[in-house]
């Protein structure tokens, strides 16, 4: 509803957390008007490939309703005309019990409603704020990125709280690889936004190996590589030990 105002080219876009890394790997959701009405907040994926809210390649269609505990994301704020004289405002969480700031990103720390405020850098006045709803991860699902076969077993699209998902029964030939992505869900099965930390393991790396998409740490995106014929179970585990598994079949 506030899309037109957010997208207005004439409006001063005040880049806050996202001043760095605004390249191809991130894009903003349509704006959500701040509670004081002086501008709009937009959600931005830390990495569009790793944040399910961005669907792999696009910006979220709306400001996500909930962010996962431990989820990382970015926010940008665009002041409207009335507040455009505030300089370069800062955005910060109200309580560091709920949200922490890591370089140019926010990370959700615990369930609850965490407001972020936008301040002027000149006099610290609060010009706007918005709530971020944080939910615990109750279940995760492993999905194959781009519909690529992920393995055998499980119903495609089913939640993987203990079961396998994403496969259509086809097998990977040795040497082939595919990507898997973890989608997190809240206690009532609503999808959660944010890049969560996920540890990936293979029951038999000599059949199928798995590696996080980033060498710098656990990520919800992983690459599975078929090595030799057989079956291997790939397990994804979040920081809170919520797990899901998928079985990979490697063809002879």
């Amino acid at each position: 509803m506030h899309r037109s105002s957010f997208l207005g080219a004439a409006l001063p876009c005040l880049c806050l957390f996202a001043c760095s890394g605004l390249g191809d790997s991130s894009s903003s959701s349509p704006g959500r008007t701040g509670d004081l009405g002086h501008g709009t907040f937009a959600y931005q994926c830390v990495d569009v490939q790793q944040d399910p809210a961005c669907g792999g390649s696009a910006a979220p269609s709306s400001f996500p309703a909930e962010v996962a505990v431990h989820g990382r994301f970015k926010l940008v704020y665009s002041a409207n005309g009335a507040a455009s004289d505030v300089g370069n405002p800062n955005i910060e969480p109200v309580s560091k019990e709920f949200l922490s700031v890591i370089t140019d990103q926010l990370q959700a720390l615990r369930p609850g409603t965490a407001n972020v405020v936008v301040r002027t850098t000149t006099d610290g006045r609060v010009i706007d704020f918005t709530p971020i709803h944080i939910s615990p991860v109750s279940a995760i699902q492993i999905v194959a990125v781009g519909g690529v076969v992920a393995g055998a077993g499980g119903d495609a699209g089913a939640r993987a709280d203990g079961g396998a998902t994403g496969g259509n029964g086809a097998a990977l030939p040795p040497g082939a690889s595919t990507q898997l992505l973890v989608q997190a869900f809240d206690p009532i099965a609503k999808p959660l936004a944010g890049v969560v930390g996920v540890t990936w393991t293979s029951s038999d790396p000599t059949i199928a190996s798995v590696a996080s998409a980033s060498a710098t740490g656990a990520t919800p995106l992983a690459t599975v590589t078929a090595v030799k014929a057989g079956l291997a179970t790939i397990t994804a585990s979040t920081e809170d030990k919520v797990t899901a598994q998928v079985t990979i079949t490697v063809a002879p």
Partner: protein
Amino acid sequence: MTRARSSRAVLGARTSRRTSASTALVAAACSLAAAGCTASYSDTTIDGVSHGEPSSSVTRSQIQVPVGAVVTAHIAPVNSDGKPMVGEVRSHDTTILEIDPAAGDKVYALLGLREGQTEVDLVADGVIVQTIHAVVTSQ
């Protein structure tokens, strides 16, 4: 001549002293009157409280803000003539409840930083006129 001049001089001196005394009395009276007419602190109005957080409240008797939440309110001291005074709102413990100016005249943002209790001073023209108990509650 000399006597008369002298008498006039004495008379003039007396008259001058009387005039000075009268002037001083009038000045004092005026000062007292002026002091009596200066409007003093009367009340602090609190309105325009945002209701984004259902469990929050900002009144003259208590402030309640959930941790992690923001509540804004227009807080303005007025004098006995009903005119605005220079106001300020201060938290005793800014690690529990932070109070910052917000957009708008005499609008303050109250930020619940962590659970706990503290006091908030309402200041009018540099003088603390009221202290309000404040609670930052859990969610």
